[in-house]
């Protein structure tokens, strides 16, 4: 399965490192990253891939939420199908 992870926060050192190390921990492969700064605001969208059979996505999603709460990052992880179905005919 593929999922979209978005991260927004006030810019700081090491955001990408923290998020991607969680992904490594849960066996997620990062396929694409787009990152930009608007003023001093950090915004990142990532496309990741995970093995569906191992059902690790829910655990990763929890871990990212925990990381977000701890580091003051706004993180959302959503199955890519939600975007495909809502915005494509």
């Amino acid at each position, binding site marked *: 399965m593929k999922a*979209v992870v978005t991260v927004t926060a006030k810019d700081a050192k090491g955001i990408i490192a923290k998020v991607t190390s969680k992904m490594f921990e849960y066996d997620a492969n990062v396929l694409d990253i787009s990152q930009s700064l608007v003023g001093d605001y950090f915004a990142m969208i990532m496309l990741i891939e995970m093995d569906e059979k191992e059902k690790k996505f829910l655990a990763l999603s929890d871990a990212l939420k925990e990381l977000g709460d701890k580091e003051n990052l706004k993180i959302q992880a959503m199955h890519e199908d939600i975007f495909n179905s809502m915005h494509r005919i």
Partner: protein
Amino acid sequence: MINTKVILETINMIEEEHLDVRTITMGISLLDCAAGTPEETCENIYNKITTYAKDLVSTGEDIEKEYGIPIIHKRISITPISLVGGLKTKEDYILAAKTLDRAAKKVGVNFLGGFSALVQKGMTNKDIAFLTSIPEALACTERVCSSVNVGSTRTGIDMDAVNICGHIVKKLAYLTRDNYSIGCAKFVVFANVPEDNPFMAGAFHGVGEPEVEINVGVSGPGVVRAAIEKAGGCNLSELADIIKKTAFKVTRMGQLVACEASRRLGVPFGIVDLSLAPTPAIGDSVAQILEAMGLERVGTHGTTAALAMLNDAVKKGGAMASSHVGGLSGAFIPVSEDQGMIDAVNLGALSIEKLEAMTCVCSVGLDMIAIPGDTPEETISAIIADEAAIGMINNKTTAARLIPAYGKNVGDMVEFGGLLGYAPIMPVNKYSSEVFVKRGGRIPAPIHSLKN
């Protein structure tokens, strides 16, 4: 990769505009639960519901997390209980209600609908016993919802049943008087009731439905309002297009969730119900959509036209997004569950008469309206009859969920809490309808029922 704009738009819809799936409702047939005694029948009912729905809540929560879409309710609808064999007396039905409540608590759903009867053309002895059980059954349970269909375009209106319903509403208000007559919020009277509606309090699993199925109700008034606000000063043709596009996106999400729930639970997918269902949360309001369309306050002149357009555009956009559309599918206009409606009532902009006009062009009817506690039951029957007549003549579903709040009067407020919200007491016409409704009998089906 999916483009950034689409990703941010979706997240904004969820985070800021209250986009959600309102309910995943599992319909379960109880037609095979009849047994020799009421106790055995109830045992079968309990076992069947707790077996089929055991994973409903956890599956809903998994989908919610994986897709990042809030799924507000997980619920159950059952075969109208008055049709289930093995139950005959008032006491049997009260026992059944308690069983259903227990089953709902066991599987963790917040409401279970289908404590219902279909009496649009007449009542069997079983139906009458059932109807007399409703006030006590709802007063002594927490999660059971009840509905009665009293009319249809094909059959006309059963005024004897309407009269009984007026009585039920009053008695229910009295029995739950310590709690703002909240029992009435769990009882709805229909005409032309849909048999696959996933929304409470009117959900049940019709007799033409399969053994078990998944129906999903989408929502999203906040998303539609935001889209209209963003559109600025465009004309109504353009506005209708914007609403359609938004409804399409919302419904696609509902369809995705419905298919996913159906696959994971191994239960066939029934329908997606395209409804705009408000909640008391700020911004999640149908009234505010109408106000965003250009009305100073909902209830003023032009409200019916705006609602008609909104309702139609939601259906047009949604119909293409789902493989099976059903249920109520339209905008809901409950008063207590919609902050914009509550404000309009408080300002004197919205009356029960205007709400009645609005029910001619949207999906349901007079919904969650608090009226004075001393309203006679004949007046309540007459209000129900008016709604049923609108449904019967216009070939559409209508309903009445009225709360004659015990001991309360115009100017008072009732607090139901949670998603049921709060409501100002609205005045009703003080002249009597008693002689008319007490005539009883049936209002014949209209000429356009003769379609064959």
